[in-house]
């Protein structure tokens, strides 16, 4: 037990504590495997049908036919057996038809499960939206009837009255927010569901000047990602200003510890360099040279989570950027990262791994989805990426989520179970939102991943390449050349 007010220590995470979804052991992998099975049945059917044709041709074979007068009885026996084999009731054609039937049956089962999954997901999304909408609409009507319609500004509208009221209702001591945070930390699953109603809540409130809509309201916010996009309209996107900087607390050329933990350790160092006057720092690391060069891009998370909507902040990694990222839009951060990657001379076909914390993870997925660089891996740490655009084929996303980390749940639903997307959940504790979201918790999770024997995780670590398998204690690591950049909003 930690003393009251003292930070909760990082809970030990063992490989056995990890919950792994997606990847080669995930649901989509099952569907793919079943569909491959159906293709194998098709191939068997084709093989047998081909044999049936060949046997039919043997019946007409010149050598066989001209031998008939020389041994009529044995010829007749051969011909009878060939005819039965080619097209008899239990012959090759009938067996080929059974394999085709089996392929169709398996394929139909797979499709049915896949469709059922999609329907359930879609239904849950719809249910969450309707729940939020049907609760929020009468609430909004009530607010308007009591003369508080100014508390329901639409995107771009005046937020002043709302912010004043929120501040007043909090008593100025932050007690309301603290209670909400405590409840959410106690009930992270409920919090995630509640967040999932966000799109419906906003639509219900904004539609409350009229009758409730049967479907989506005029703002069409089916998901929390769409809602975040609407909220982002209050913030100024800006343009990136990218300047080179010295690597923080590390030599330009030096060694990087191996394993996923080694990468997280590097990210912790880069994130530690952020602060007043140093916000927006990222780092590009090169391993090898020439055609053998590969790159790691380290992207820390949010620097300023309480940006005022009407404020033109020079901090690129702020609340507005978070909202736009959740909506999958290009941001001042993603544009700045791309500019830095170009400046670092990363060739378009050189393999790139992006490791990002929080907003950095979302940005990493967006960079991969942009297709400008040959991103092979994105590792996200505490990033709400469930609703982000699907990455191109060949890109592997590995998401680490601390159970208590509410930021990772801001997407309102679990990450999709895809072959390309592995999600690893663990409980590294955290007594507050900030603690549970801290990189040190993810370092513990990454070390457990390195030590895990889970086949999905082993595949991921092997895929990450030399230096990633075996953990941070597994070897001397790799020599890397570091280039740091600072991204701000101009």
């Amino acid at each position, binding site marked *: 037990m930690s003393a009251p007010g003292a930070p909760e220590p990082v809970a030990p995470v063992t490989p056995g504590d990890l919950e792994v979804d997606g990847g080669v*052991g995930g649901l989509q*992998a*099952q569907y793919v*495997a*079943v569909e*491959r*099975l159906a293709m*194998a*049945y098709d191939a*068997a059917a084709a*093989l*047998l049908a081909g*044999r049936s044709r*060949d*046997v039919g041709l*043997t019946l007409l*074979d*010149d*050598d*066989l036919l*001209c*031998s008939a*007068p*020389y*041994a009529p*009885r*044995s*010829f007749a*026996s*051969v011909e009878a*057996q*060939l005819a*039965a*084999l080619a097209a008899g009731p*239990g*012959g*090759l054609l*009938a*067996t080929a038809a*059974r*394999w085709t039937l*089996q392929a169709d*049956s*398996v394929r139909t*089962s797979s499709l049915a*499960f896949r469709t059922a999954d999609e329907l359930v997901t879609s239904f849950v999304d719809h249910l969450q939206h309707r729940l939020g909408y049907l609760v929020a609409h009468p609430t909004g009507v009530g607010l308007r009837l009591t003369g508080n319609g100014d508390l329901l500004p639409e995107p771009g509208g005046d937020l002043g009255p709302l912010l004043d009221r929120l501040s007043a209702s909090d008593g100025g001591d932050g007690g309301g927010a603290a209670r909400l945070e405590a409840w959410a930390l106690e009930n992270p699953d409920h919090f995630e569901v509640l967040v999932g109603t966000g799109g419906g809540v906003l639509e219900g409130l904004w539609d409350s000047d009229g009758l409730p809509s049967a479907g989506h309201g005029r703002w069409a916010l089916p998901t929390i990602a769409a809602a975040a996009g609407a909220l982002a309209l209050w913030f100024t996107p800006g343009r990136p200003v990218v300047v080179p900087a010295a690597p923080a607390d590390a030599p330009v050329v030096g060694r990087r510890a191996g394993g996923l933990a080694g990468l997280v350790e590097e990210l912790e160092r880069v994130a530690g360099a952020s602060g007043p006057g140093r916000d927006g720092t990222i780092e590009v690391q090169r391993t090898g040279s020439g055609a053998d060069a590969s790159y790691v891009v380290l992207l820390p998370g949010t620097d300023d989570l309480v940006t005022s909507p009407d404020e033109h902040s020079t901090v690129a990694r702020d609340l507005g950027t978070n909202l736009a990222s959740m909506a999958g839009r290009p941001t001042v951060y993603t544009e700045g990262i791309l500019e830095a990657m170009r400046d670092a001379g990363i060739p378009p076909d050189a393999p790139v791994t992006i490791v990002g914390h929080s907003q950095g993870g979302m940005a990493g997925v967006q960079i991969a989805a942009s297709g400008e660089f040959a991103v092979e891996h994105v590792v996200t740490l505490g990033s709400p990426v469930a609703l982000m655009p699907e990455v191109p084929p060949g890109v592997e996303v590995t998401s680490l989520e601390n159970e208590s980390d509410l930021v990772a749940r801001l997407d309102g639903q679990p990450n999709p179970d895809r072959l390309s997307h592995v999600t690893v959940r663990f409980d590294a504790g955290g007594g507050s939102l900030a603690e549970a979201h801290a990189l040190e918790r993810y370092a513990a999770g990454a070390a457990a991943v390195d030590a895990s024997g889970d086949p999905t995780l082993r595949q991921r670590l092997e895929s990450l390449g030399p230096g990633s398998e075996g953990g941070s204690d597994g070897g001397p690591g790799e020599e890397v050349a570091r280039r740091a950049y600072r991204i701000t909003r101009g």
Partner: protein
Amino acid sequence: MLPDVEALRALAQAYRAAGGTLRSEATALGVAVESTPWHGLAAEAARAATHEVGAMTRARADEHDEVAAALESHALEVARTLAAIAAVRERFLALAASVGATVVDAAGATLSTAGELLETVGEHVPGALGDAVGAVGELAGDLGGLLGGDDAEEAAAELRERIERIHVPGVGDLAWLDLDLPELA
């Protein structure tokens, strides 16, 4: 066209190989369905069906083996028939040659008798072989007359010329099996 025994044996071998391929395919699919990460009732039903159709495929593989065995047996029969034909033909040709060789030193009566015999057989053998046997018989009969004369050398030359003009059925011709000569059967 003569039957090609080696081609028949190769065909049998191809069937045996195809049976092996089918058996391997059935085994591979059985392994694939067991190793596919798929669980539940549908998966179990698919596994059972796969093993059932796999067994059917193995049965087809076995039938390929049976066809291969039948083809090998057929090839053996054909080979035996061809050998029998070859033996008859060889002995016939030997007899025909002996007719020619006897030109010089055999007695005309003997040749006349052999000629009559061959002519009689030739009338009962249809087709080209019958013609050939008849022709040889006629020759032998004629020789009897020729050898009764003084010019034996001239007669021998004429005989050889007439023998060369006889059309003898080819190797493997089934007609040889219809030939029933004394000491040729």
